[in-house]
Structures are given as C-alpha cells and as structure tokens.
C-alpha cells in the first residue's frame, strides 16, 4: 500500500459537508455513517430493552399478569433478534466505521457508497421486525434461534422475520467486506499488520467471521422459508427431513456469532485499558494470536448447544473438549488485561470503569460458560435460567459494557465535547449494581430448574424472579442517564482538548478534536509501536 492509492480514494470524497437530510440519506463519509449506525443501534437497544421489561414485568410474580403466553413468546423472540442484529452488531460496525480509518490512517472506508447501502438496509429490516407484532398471528415466537419445527409452523410474522434476517445479513456482509478491505488495503505507510491497534485486529477478524457465517444463517432461514411455502421437507420429519438438522446448521452460524459480538469488545478493552493504566498493552502478539485462535476454534464447537438432542457420546465428548479449549486463548486475554493494569498508574474515568467492569463480569460469564460446556452438567442446565444468566453476563456486561466504554472513550474525538464525568460514573455504578441484581439470581433459578422462555413458573421461584424484575427496571431506567449525558454533552459539553486522556497514544489522538470531516486525505508517514502506538508521524493533512 502506498500514499498514491490513498489519495486516489480521497479524490472521490466531496470536499464540502452536505447539509440537512441529504447529508444523512446520501451519507458516504465514514464518520456520518458511523454516527448513523450508533444512533440506530441505540434506538434498537431501547426497543429491545422495552421488550425485555415486558418480559420481566410478566415474570415479576407467578401466574399470567400482563400478556398471553403467545405474546410473551413473541417478546422473548424479538428481544433476542433485536438486541443481537439490531443493537450489538450495528453498534460495533458503527464504531469500526467511525474509528478504523482514524486509527490506521485511512482517508475513509474503502467503499463509501456500499457503506451507505449497508447502513440504509438496516432501518427497513428493523421496521419489518417491528410491524410483525401487528400482523395476523403476531411476530415470530420460536425464540431468536427460530428452531424448526416451531418456525416452520408460525404465522406470517415468521416470514417477515426471515426477510428481515436476509436484509440484515446482506447489510452486515457488506459492512464486513468494507472493514476487511479498509484494514488490509488502506493502512497508512508504517502501520503494519503486526503493529496495528487491537481494535483493528478484532474488527478485521470479526469481519471475516461475519462473511463466513452470515450466509449460512441466510441459507438455513431460506430452507425454513421453502419448507413453509414451497413444499420442501428439509426439517419436516414426516417428509423425510430432520428438525435436528436445523440446529446443526443454525449453530454452525450461531457459535461464531457469539464471537462476532465478543471479539470487537476485546478490541475496545485492549485500547482503553492501556490508555488509563498508562502502560503498553501486555503481550500484544499473544493477543493477536489468541483472537485468531478463538475465531478458528469457534467453528468447531457448535454442537455444545445440542447436548440434549441425543448425540452419540463420542460427539458429545469432542464438542465438550473443543469448547473447553476456547477457555485457553480467552484466559490469555484476561491475563493480559490484568497484567496491563498491574503496577500501572491507573485512573478511573468512565471508559476505564466500564472496561474493568467488562473484564470482571465477562470472566464470570466465561466461567459459567465453561460449566455449561461439560456435557453431563449441560443436560441438567439446558434451556434453564442458568443459560440465560450466562449469556447475559457475556452480552450485557460483556458486549454492552465494552460499547459504553468505547462511546465514552471516543466521545470527545467524535463530538469535540467532553461528556459529564459525574453522570458517566453514576451511569457505570448504577448499571453495575442493577445488572448484577438482575442477572445473578438467574443462576440460582436455573440451578433450581426454572425453564427459560415460559411466562409462568412454580411458586418456589417467586423471590428470585421478583428481585430480577426490580433489577431489570432499575437497569433500564439507568440507561436514560446515558442518553441524557450524551444529548446534553453534544449540545452544551465543555470543549474537549485534542488528547483528553493522558495515556492515549494511538493515531486517532494525533489529529485535531473533533476529528475533521475529511481526515488523512493525504496518508501520513508513521512509525508505529505495538497496539498502534504512534512513535512518530509526518504529514497526514486534512480539511
């Protein structure tokens, strides 16, 4: 890659900033598109959150209070789909859009118009999911995994969901292609692969995972669609098909999907912790290899979701040991983060708090994952609240906390304003406390045998459910602190300096704040240390 290539890309960029609605509708600037992604995923986070509160309201006490079981099932299904495909994945893509070009010295994403498409496919898909609540038969109710034969039977809502998944799949594949090409082809001279920031590595590997498995999801839901309408029998036992086959294909997508939502979080934390510990990231090279090996192993463990489907014992053992093996590279990462903090000159601004919260709570979720990987134990815990507790520790305290960390960390660079540190700290402690009150009791509920996805429960589960419901509502309201902080700080925040964090030393902090609309129009000449630390920079003009 040389400078000439970079400038060629840059010459395609309009030099004036478009105004009004057109700026967003026809957006090709990576920063505008990143902003769109982030606001969209926040809206989806709120929608999915409202559904979660609907679920928790129903589960506050035994018996049916608010919803019929059918609607309850629709709420659990859509909550999962909206959070996974609407909130978490687009949020990471949005951050990658915003920050990758700044962190590796590229003028923009590689395919600016395709970038516009990948974003603008999202709102129609979200709309399809939302309106499915009001079609005859209601929304899809088979769980976010859309298991056959439930999904081959549902009403029209299931069809809308399948179309929405197709659109979301196309969107995320295009987004991922953009990320791969940008990271591989548009790095500034000196920003070599084995020096670039962990966030770039994590985004690159995640993008490869998306390209590899989103088509598999699209394929399997297409089979559901043809089973529903075109008389095929892929998953219909009466016609010679096999419903368990659905699970095999779905989880071939599903487990790598778990890492699509986790690896970017690892990347963010690997940028934030060194900044606030004022120490270089411990074991950068091992981080890169750990991330890659997690990605490769994630293709070999899918059937750990299927221990109760009557698999032969040999297969159970294989998937059990392969799953446990993933704990090794994950352990390497946790060790490296802790070692980075060791004897560091740490300060605890909001991004660092969320990053440390991430490390602690994600590790708890990882450990309950190791417990679930034991086939003999999993047969007891399959489809109980223990599983719900496990994946909310890795997705809420994991993915979501890392996203908050990232938004607070890069907020000054994005907006040129400082957020309110007081409100940020309040948001963190509030979220930390109520998150644990919501999800920790679910471990006990699961161990006691409470099944998931059921609107009613036996009386002995009442107390822990009441605690979890109160926690969920408080956690939910706490997110308004975040919203208020963001909106207020964008309008009235203190102006931010170019480098608001003393220990920040990657490329995005070497340019003006807020990041100029067209940055690195001419690629800079860089000398780079591990994890994208800028040792020397020449050039890199902007407008």
């Amino acid at each position, binding site marked *: 890659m040389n400078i000439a290539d970079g400038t060629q890309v840059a010459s395609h960029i309009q030099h004036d900033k478009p105004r009004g609605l057109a700026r967003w509708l026809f957006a090709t600037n990576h920063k505008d598109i990143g902003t769109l992604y982030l606001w969209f995923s926040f809206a989806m986070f709120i929608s999915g959150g409202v559904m979660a509160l609907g679920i928790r309201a129903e589960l506050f006490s035994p018996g049916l209070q608010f919803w019929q079981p059918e609607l309850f099932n629709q709420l659990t299904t859509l909550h999962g789909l909206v959070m996974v495909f609407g909130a978490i994945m687009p949020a990471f893509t949005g951050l990658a859009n915003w920050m990758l070009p700044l962190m590796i010295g590229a003028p923009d994403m590689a395919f600016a118009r395709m970038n516009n498409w990948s974003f603008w496919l999202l709102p129609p898909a979200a709309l399809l999911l939302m309106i499915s609540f009001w079609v005859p038969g209601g929304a899809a109710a088979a769980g976010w995994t859309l298991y056959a034969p439930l999904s081959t039977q549902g009403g029209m809502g299931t069809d809308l969901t399948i179309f929405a998944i197709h659109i979301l799949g196309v969107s995320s594949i295009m987004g991922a292609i953009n990320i*791969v*090409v940008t990271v591989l082809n548009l790095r500034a001279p000196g920003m070599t692969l084995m020096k670039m920031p962990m966030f770039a590595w994590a985004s690159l590997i995640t993008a490869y995972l998306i390209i590899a498995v989103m088509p598999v999801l699209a394929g399997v839901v297409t089979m559901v669609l043809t089973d529903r309408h075109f008389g095929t029998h892929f998953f219909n036992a009466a016609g010679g098909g096999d419903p368990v086959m659905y699970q095999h294909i779905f989880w*071939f997508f599903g487990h790598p999907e778990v890492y699509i939502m986790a690896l970017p979080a690892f990347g963010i934390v690997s940028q934030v912790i060194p900044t606030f510990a004022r120490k270089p990231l411990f074991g950068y090279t091992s981080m890169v290899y750990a991330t890659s090996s997690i990605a490769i192993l994630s293709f070999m463990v899918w059937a750990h979701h299927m221990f109760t489907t009557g698999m032969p014992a040999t297969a159970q053992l294989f998937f059990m040991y392969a799953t446990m093996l993933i704990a090794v590279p994950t352990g390497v990462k946790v060790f490296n983060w802790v070692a980075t903090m060791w004897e560091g000159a740490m300060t605890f601004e909001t991004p660092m708090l969320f990053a440390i919260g991430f490390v602690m709570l994600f590790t708890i979720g990882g450990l309950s994952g190791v417990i679930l990987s034991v086939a003999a134990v999993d047969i007891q815990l399959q489809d109980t609240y223990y599983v719900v507790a496990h994946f909310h520790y890795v997705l809420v305290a994991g993915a979501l906390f890392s996203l908050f960390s990232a938004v607070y960390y890069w907020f000054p660079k994005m907006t040129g304003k400082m957020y309110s540190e007081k409100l940020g700290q309040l948001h963190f402690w509030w979220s930390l406390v109520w998150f644990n009150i919501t999800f920790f009791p679910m471990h006990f509920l699961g161990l006691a045998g409470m099944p998931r996805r059921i609107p009613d429960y036996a009386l002995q589960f009442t107390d822990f459910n009441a605690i979890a419901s109160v926690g969920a509502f408080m956690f939910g309201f706490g997110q308004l602190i975040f919203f208020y902080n963001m909106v207020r700080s964008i309008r009235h925040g203190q102006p931010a300096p170019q480098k608001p964090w003393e220990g920040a030393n990657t490329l995005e902090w070497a340019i003006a704040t807020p990041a100029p609309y067209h940055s690195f129009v001419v690629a800079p000449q860089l000398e780079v240390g591990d994890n994208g630390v800028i040792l020397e920079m020449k050039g890199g003009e902007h407008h």
Partner: protein
Amino acid sequence: MRDNRILLKKLLLIACLMFGFAWALIPMYRVICEVTGINRVVKADAAPAAGSSIAPGVPVKLVFDANVQAGLPWQVKPLVRSMMARTGEFVRVDYEITNASNRRVVGQAIPRYLPAAAGPYVHKLDCFCFKEQAFAPGETRRFPVVFVVSRELPAELSELTLAYTVFDVPGKVAS
C-alpha cells in the same frame, strides 16, 4: 483502487460459497452419519456369513409375568406362567387383559426382559405392545405374543423372563 475491487470480489465469492455450504451441509451430514455410523440409533441385523452352519437350538426356560401400576384399572395375566422352548423356534403365548373400570380407556403395554441382557435376543414377530389398545368398559380380550429366541443367545442365559406393564395413555378416550 484495483486492489480493493479484487479483494471485494474475493470476499463476495467467499460469502456466496458459504451460502452454498449451508445447503451442502444437508447431504454432508447424511453422508457423514452413514459412513461413520455415529447416528445409527436402530441397528439392522447383520446377515449371517454365507456357508456358516446354523447352530442347533438349545433348550431355554421362559417365564411370563405382568404388572399393573397401583391405581390403574387393568388386570393383566399370561395364560401360561412358564414353558420350555428351544432357541430358533417360534414361541406363542397368550395374555388376557381386562379393563376393570366402567369407562373407555386406551392402554399401552411396555415389555421388560430379565435379565436385561437377554432383550436383544428376543425377536418379536407380533405383540399387543406394538400399538395402543382401546378397551370398552369391563371388556376382556386375549392377545397373542409371537417371538423367536435367537440362536445366538449366550449359554449362560438359560432362563429368561418376559414381563409386561400396562399404562394408561392419558388424554386418549377410546372411540
């Protein structure tokens, strides 16, 4: 720019191949399961090797039994309690089942073998346990069980018991 387009095309190709891979998984699973036999829940009987002489039948004592779980309206009894037979021969035994209640019921008989290791050597040709049986109030019926004890029965199993337990099929009312 050209580099970018080439990479774009390669990545699109990967995406398309993975879409095809999802569909290819259907036959792939089938072939893998067939070749490795890891998913063979029902095993077909192996054909006897050609030219091998059939072992002569050996005497075996058969005991017949039946139980009913407490509270259920069934009376079940075999018409003979025990008999001597030879392996490789057809054996027929009759069971009498009565619905002692005054309602219509549907029952399902579940066989059990003692010792359990003898189970695979009893090949049933006909049995009332093959399907659910409907009974009118107070009705009594006789059912045959026809089976062969395999010639491969290990020598240490010289006596085996066949016992039935009859259950109600809940939610089913005989029509």
